[in-house]
C-alpha cells in the first residue's frame, strides 16, 4: 500500500504523503519554479528520475538515489546529428522536424537497468544502464511512416505512453500523439503499426480508420493481464483485449468520452478510471462539474464518481499523466491544470482534497 506520491507541476516537483491522521499533505518540494514534465520512481523507493523542461535552456534530467534527499543532473536523451540533405518535415505544416529533444513525455522502467523514454518530437530512447546513457531507437525513428506523425497538443508529435510487457520486457508498445500505436517484440529492432478498430473524426472521413492518424491521448495496460489495454483517444474511449492489435470503441459514456487521462486497476483488467471533459472544442468539465468515471465490467457500464470533488462550478482539466493508481488498486490520485489535487482511498468512491493551490499539475506517480 503506497502512502506517498510525487507530483510534477508547471512550477516544481512536490511530494504528497499520507500523515498519521489520514490526511494527505504536501511534505516536500524540489525544483521550485521549473516545469517537471515527467517522473519515474523506480521500484524500491530510492531511485527517482525527474525530467525538467527549462524552456530557454532545454530539457534536463535529474536523478536521486536516496528517495529525493539529494538530486544530481543526469544525461539527457539527445538526438544524433541529422544527416545532411535529409528531408524531415511535419506533414501538417511543412516545418522541419527538429532533431532535438523538446520535451520528455514518457519514462518507464523495462528490464533490469533498462529505461524507455518518449519525447517530443517523436523520438523513443532506450537506456540499458539506468539512465547513464541513452540511445535513440533508430528502427522506429527511421521508419518512413514516422514522418507522417503529426503534432497533437504540441507542435510536433510525441510519444507519451510506453507499455513494457511484464511477461517479456522485449515486448514494448508505445502510443503517439498523433501517430497511432506501435509495438515491438524484439526490444526495439522491429516495429509494427497496430490499432485496428480505432476511429478518428478529425481527418477526411475515408481516413477515419487509418491506424497511423490516430490521436491516442493515453494508453495503459493492466499489469496482471497485460493483453488488456485501455485508451483515452481524442475521439473516445477504446479497449483492447489482445495487446493493442484490435480495439473496441465504448460509446455512450457519461458525461463524455473525451478526456486525456486513464488508469487501470493493476490486478483487475475490467476496472479503469477516466476524467472526462467536454470534447475538444472546450476541454473543461461537462457542465463545469468535475467528475471521475469508472468502469468495473470492462466498459459495459460506467459510473460517475463525484463524492468529495467540487460541488461548485469547476474548470479543471486533467492532463494525460496526471491520474495514477497505486499498486493495490485502491488508492488513486489526480491533479488538474488549475492546481487542485485529490486522493481517493476507496477506488474513487470518495475523494479528499489535498490542495487547490498547486501549480498546474503535469504528472502524478505513486511511490511504491
Amino acid at each position: 500500500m503506497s502512502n506517498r506520491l510525487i507530483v510534477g507541476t508547471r512550477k516544481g516537483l512536490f511530494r504528497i504523503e499520507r500523515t498519521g491522521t489520514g490526511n494527505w499533505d504536501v511534505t516536500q518540494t524540489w525544483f521550485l519554479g521549473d516545469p517537471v514534465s515527467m517522473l519515474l520512481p523506480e521500484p524500491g523507493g530510492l531511485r527517482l528520475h525527474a525530467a525538467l523542461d527549462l524552456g530557454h535552456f532545454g530539457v534536463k534530467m535529474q536523478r536521486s538515489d536516496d528517495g529525493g534527499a539529494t538530486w544530481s543532473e543526469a544525461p539527457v536523451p539527445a538526438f544524433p546529428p541529422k544527416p545532411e540533405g535529409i528531408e524531415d518535415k511535419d506533414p501538417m505544416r511543412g516545418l522541419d522536424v527538429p532533431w532535438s529533444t523538446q520535451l520528455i513525455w514518457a519514462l518507464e522502467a523495462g528490464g533490469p537497468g533498462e529505461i524507455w523514454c518518449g519525447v517530443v518530437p517523436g523520438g523513443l530512447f532506450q537506456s540499458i544502464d539506468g539512465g547513464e546513457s541513452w540511445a535513440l531507437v533508430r528502427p522506429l525513428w527511421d521508419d518512413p511512416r514516422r514522418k507522417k506523425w503529426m503534432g497533437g497538443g504540441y507542435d510536433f508529435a510525441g510519444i507519451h505512453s510506453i507499455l513494457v510487457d511484464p511477461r517479456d520486457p522485449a515486448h514494448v508498445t508505445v502510443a503517439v500523439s498523433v501517430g497511432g500505436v506501435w509495438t515491438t517484440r524484439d526490444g526495439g529492432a522491429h516495429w509494427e503499426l497496430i490499432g485496428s478498430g480505432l476511429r478518428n473524426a478529425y481527418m477526411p472521413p475515408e481516413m477515419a480508420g487509418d491506424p497511423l492518424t490516430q490521436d491516442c491521448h493515453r494508453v495503459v495496460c493492466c499489469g496482471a493481464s497485460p493483453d488488456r489495454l485501455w485508451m483515452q483517444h481524442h475521439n473516445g474511449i477504446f479497449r483492447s483485449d489482445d495487446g493493442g492489435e484490435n480495439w473496441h470503441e465504448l460509446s455512450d459514456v457519461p458525461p463524455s468520452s473525451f478526456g486525456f487521462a486513464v488508469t487501470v486497476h493493476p490486478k483487475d483488467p475490467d476496472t479503469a478510471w477516466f476524467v472526462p471533459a467536454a470534447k475538444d472544442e472546450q476541454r473543461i468539465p461537462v457542465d463545469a462539474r468535475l467528475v471521475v468515471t469508472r468502469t468495473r465490467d470492462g466498459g459495459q457500464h460506467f459510473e460517475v464518481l463525484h463524492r468529495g470533488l467540487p460541488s461548485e462550478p469547476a474548470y479543471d482539466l486533467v492532463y494525460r499523466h496526471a491520474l495514477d493508481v497505486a499498486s493495490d488498486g485502491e488508492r488513486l490520485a489526480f491533479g488538474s491544470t488549475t492546481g487542485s489535487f485529490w486522493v481517493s482511498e476507496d477506488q474513487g468512491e470518495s475523494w479528499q482534497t489535498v490542495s487547490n493551490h498547486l501549480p498546474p499539475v503535469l504528472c502524478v506517480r505513486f511511490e511504491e
Partner: protein
Amino acid sequence: MTTLCFTPNLLRHVKTPTAHVVGSTVRQALEGYFRANPRVRGYVLDDQGALRQHVAIFLNQELIHDRINLSDSVREHDDIFVVQALSGG
C-alpha cells in the same frame, strides 16, 4: 583574448564562470569554453549544436547573425554575452 560571460539566470542550474577564450568564430570560442565547462553546452546549444531557440548571443552588443553554425567572426578583445531571450516565456 575574447571575454565570454553568461546571463545570471543560468546560475540557478549550472555554474557559468566568466572566462577568457580563444577562437576566430563564436563556435570556436564556445567550444573552448565547453571543454572546460562541459555541462554548460546543453543549456546553450540544442542536440544539433545550434543555438537554442530562446537563447541569444550578443557579440559586442550586437546579436550574432548565424544561430545555426555560429560562424560570426570574433576578434581579440571582443565580448561575447550569452543571454536568454524574453520570447521563451
